[in-house]
């Protein structure tokens, strides 16, 4: 984000580090049922990996990998997955968010259907939290002017 302080050491270390952070975020989501963790924490760790990418590289790199259109889509997709899981339970004849009824469409018994229903909603929470955190950070750090910031970075490249 600050072009003058670009450093080959920082970039190499971050390039090495970011995949492990993202894998850890997914691990926290997947192991949220058996150990501390869950969608919120995993989403924050995933967002932190993108924030680290913004700090060590620049905005253009982040927007190339995680475009703004995709970001806005993910913001609402997570809430949609959560509410949609509840709505599917409602359509299958149970109460809203009563995951036991999911056993009618999943090949499991009602107890394990609750397990998988919880996994689905945690995934939704993780997607929303990750997209929202990245979006808030990018809007704060550029004061909402993504395009101008990318152009300034391009100008900085040419003058070197």
């Amino acid at each position, binding site marked *: *984000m600050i072009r003058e302080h670009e450093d080959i050491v920082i970039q190499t270390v971050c390039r090495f580090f970011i995949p492990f952070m993202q894998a850890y975020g997914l691990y926290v989501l997947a192991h949220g049922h058996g150990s501390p963790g869950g969608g919120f*924490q995993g989403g924050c760790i995933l967002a932190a990996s993108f924030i680290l990418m913004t700090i060590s590289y620049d905005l253009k790199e982040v927007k190339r990998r995680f475009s703004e259109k995709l970001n806005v889509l993910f913001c609402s997709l997570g809430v949609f997955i959560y509410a949609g899981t509840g709505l599917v339970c409602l359509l299958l004849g149970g109460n809203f968010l009563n995951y036991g009824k999911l056993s009618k469409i999943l090949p499991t018994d009602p107890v394990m259907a609750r397990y998988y229903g919880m996994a689905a909603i945690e995934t939704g929470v993780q997607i929303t939290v990750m997209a929202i955190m990245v979006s808030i950070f990018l809007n704060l750090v550029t004061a909402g002017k993504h395009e101008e910031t990318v152009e300034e970075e391009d100008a900085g490249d040419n003058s070197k």
Partner: protein
Amino acid sequence: MIWQINLVLLSFAVIAALTAISVKDLLSAVVLLGAFSFFMCLLWTEMGAVDVAFTEAAVGAGVNTAFFIAAIYKTTRRTKD
């Protein structure tokens, strides 16, 4: 719960909080707020609330600090008072 460890962690949390509101440089205040979050995280781990501690470490010390630094980067580093 071991009260000696609790006492040390709580004292450090109070010191970090008091320093964060009295320091002039806003960037230092943000870093001290992150330190406060970490002490609260350790306190919660010590009390057995591991999920809350995890959330505090991920949100309070990780993402929140980045948000504050981004806001300072776009506004000002000095306090008015």
